[in-house]
């Protein structure tokens, strides 16, 4: 049996902010081409973990390996260059700028005007943005329209499509469905699946088991800065995941209390 092929590993990572222990010996191993769901309630340390992966934080203890080799990212730029793209909840989109300008923000396609003046190639930007979004199943009416006219789900998809276009091998999605309606959430989940079909490894952060379970291959649960383990999908049921997230018995009493409430 061959050893599992990990594209990205966090081994026994700890991160402190002054007296606060944000992460305490967390291990997370992402297999190549899988969707790995990172689950946890508020304050579980998800954000810190993402920022560590994205190169924003350097961990105090533990090792960060990409393709089996230890790395120390000094900035998010370096992580990005290594193919690790993070789509934050704010999406890094500017509402008053056009779809095309947003898609290529910071990485503008260039051409030479009159052979010597470097200018942004708007035609290429608009065409590529529309084509790449169409690949992801999003139809853009007009690539020159401001992004503020798009729905939350469309914006989320655009941010993901942009990361994929710029060569992401690992996509880290920070609660991409948190602010979305039911239908739009399904679209984003479909997009995650489509990314996986293209061989992209995904870390999908959420606290919604109903979103995580249908697309996830494995699940890591975080609770109060500690990992409660990683489980392959075939070894765990949806309810078991939910129980572990909320701390098992606690959830049952909570639900029973709620049911008893009359308003």
């Amino acid at each position, binding site marked *: 049996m061959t050893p599992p092929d990990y594209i990205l590993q966090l081994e026994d990572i700890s991160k402190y902010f002054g007296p606060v222990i944000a992460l305490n010996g967390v291990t997370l191993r992402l297999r190549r081409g899988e969707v790995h769901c990172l689950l946890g309630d508020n304050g579980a340390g998800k954000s810190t973990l993402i920022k560590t992966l994205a190169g924003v934080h350097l961990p105090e203890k533990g090792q960060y390996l990409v393709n089996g080799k230890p790395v120390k990212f000094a900035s998010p730029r370096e992580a990005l260059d290594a193919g690790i793209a993070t789509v934050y909840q704010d999406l890094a989109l500017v509402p008053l700028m056009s779809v095309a300008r947003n898609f290529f923000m910071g990485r*503008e396609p260039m051409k030479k005007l009159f052979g010597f003046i470097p200018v942004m190639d708007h035609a290429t930007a608009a065409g590529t943005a529309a084509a790449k979004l169409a690949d992801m199943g999003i139809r853009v009416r007009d690539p020159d329209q401001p992004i503020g006219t798009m729905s939350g789900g469309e914006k989320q998809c655009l941010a993901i499509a942009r990361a994929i276009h710029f060569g992401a091998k690992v996509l880290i999605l920070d609660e991409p469905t948190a602010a979305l309606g039911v239908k739009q959430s399904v679209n984003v989940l479909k997009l995650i699946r489509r990314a996986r079909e293209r061989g992209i490894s995904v870390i999908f952060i959420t606290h919604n088991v109903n979103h995580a379970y249908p697309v996830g291959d494995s699940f890591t649960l975080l609770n109060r800065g500690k990992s409660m383990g990683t489980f392959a999908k075939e070894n765990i049921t949806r309810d078991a995941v939910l129980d572990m997230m909320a701390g098992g018995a606690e959830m049952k009493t909570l639900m029973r209390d709620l049911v008893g409430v009359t308003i």
Partner: protein
Amino acid sequence: MSAIVPMSDPQPAPDAATTAAPAAAADERVRNVGIVRKFLARPEFGALSGAVLVFLLFGLSAGSSGMFSAEGMVNWGTVAAFLGIIAVGAALLMIAGEFDLSIGSMIGFAGMMMAIPCLYWGWPVWLAVLFAFAMGMALGWVNGWLVIKTGLPSFIVTLAFYFILRGLSLAISVLLTGKTILSSNGSAVLRDLIAADPVAQFLFQGHVLTGVFDMLARIGLIAARDNGTALAIGLPKVMAWWLLLTLVGAFVLARTRAGNWILAAGGDPNAAKNVGIPVAKVKIALFVFVAFCATLFAVLQVADAGSAAADRGLQKEFEAIIAAVIGGCLLTGGFGSVIGASLGALIFGVVQIGIGYTSIDNNWYRVFLGGMLLAAVLFNNYIRKRVALGRV
């Protein structure tokens, strides 16, 4: 409606809509957005309609007074051009999400930095001009660096420099020369020194297109003097600079990578940082550019007036910001137009000078400008919400 349209007129609208956007048919929730609406969403729209309005107003009330003769046009065009130069800088900085309230004080300071070396240290004019630009742009860099490093609002940091630079201009000129208005020192006369320096003279003093004006006078299109040359000598060089800066500024914003970075830095600095745009560098560069514009204003003014004064440029920072806002720049950044700001400056020039050609009391000028500013801000907000972001 159709009765007004001549029979021969083609009606391309339906065809154009179907060929240009076949994909749009697939989404039943998309309304067809007309050209008018798209034009409304452009940041320049407010300034353009304001300019048309102002021209109509003065055309009707002062059309016969000589305001629109060649001399009259050069007159208000010069006022607009001076303001336009700093409005271009202020607009780009505002689009990047920052202000500079020290522009006016910088004008007084830079003028002094040019005049003192010329008159009191015996420097050649071109070197003094370079010195003024170096000092001005260094101060612009300090402004930007402080804003970025401290994270304080640029309003506060540049307000400090508004006072510091005005005070320095007065204090330094009194300390070194004993005067606050410099036009000569003994036998050295500033105007003659500039005229004698080929580089400074070519770039900053006098007029362009004098030949064209003389020709127009000869064929009787514009007023001539007794010797046949045009009464309006030509276009002052400040107008050429205004045009050049406007064109370059608009080109950079619309077509270059730097323009995309400016829009992004102002629209959402955090997002811009997350996609790898060097937001700090973009902003500091624009503070330096604004200082460049202010120094250019100062040098042109010194060359034009033949003197430097420590109180020059009073209130110019506000006028530049007003021109930028009338031009469609949002105070919050991320949206605006350089051409709009130049149109805003044009409106300024026309109103400020034009009011003297009418029977209206000059004091109404500020009332009009304040009203214009208020209307522009309300209009900009309306446009942003309604058209740009599709919240109908």
